[in-house]
């Protein structure tokens, strides 16, 4: 734990602030995930942790290792880019899957969802594998 004493005071304060902000937002996202009532509301809760929960922690990590290693450490930006690109894909697919399951009569509803604005394609469409 000697590396914490090497940091200049201004950097230590900034890192502490960023880490606390990021962790608090992520914790709020977790609380929302448990507290909110329906699935589509819960879909919003983890986004807190994905957006401004991740960013301050990544910035704090970059700042800290750049100072302790005495060189520019930017590889945490890779995680940021990766999260930025992949989060929309996962949430979008989850939302679509939930919508499809809610429209399926057999599975039972727990929330009213808007109907398709176009008629369903005939069910006997030729089987095509994705």
């Amino acid at each position: 734990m000697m590396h914490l004493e090497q940091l200049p005071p201004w950097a230590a304060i900034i890192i502490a602030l960023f880490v606390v902000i990021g962790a608090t937002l992520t914790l709020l996202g977790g609380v929302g995930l448990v507290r909110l009532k329906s699935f589509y509301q819960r879909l919003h809760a983890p986004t807190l942790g994905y957006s401004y929960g991740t960013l301050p922690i990544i910035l704090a990590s970059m700042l800290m290792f750049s100072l302790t290693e005495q060189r520019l450490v930017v590889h945490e930006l890779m995680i940021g880019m990766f999260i930025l690109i992949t989060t929309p894909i996962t949430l979008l697919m989850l939302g679509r899957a939930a919508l499809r399951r809610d429209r399926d009569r057999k599975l039972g509803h727990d929330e009213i969802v808007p109907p398709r604005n176009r008629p369903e394609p005939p069910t006997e469409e030729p089987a095509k594998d994705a």
Partner: protein
Amino acid sequence: MTAEILRFALGYAQIALILALALACWRMLIGPRAQDRVLGLDTMYINAMLLFLVIGMSNGNVFFFEGALVIAVLGFVTTVCAAKFLMRGEVIE
């Protein structure tokens, strides 16, 4: 003095992230429907990734970063596969 503040902040962040992890796990266990469980799993992956980053910072070890990157990649692939299964697996049977 500032090192003490930083140590406290890192400890608080670890506790908060572990709590968030536990809450996401709770949602994954009770989740009334399958999509809730997948959402909880995805949140757990991201929280574990952030926890790895914070642990790496408090240990001063750069190599926790590699673990965080692997967790992020695995979480993405897992969630996409599970969502794809929810979309396809029960609709066309």
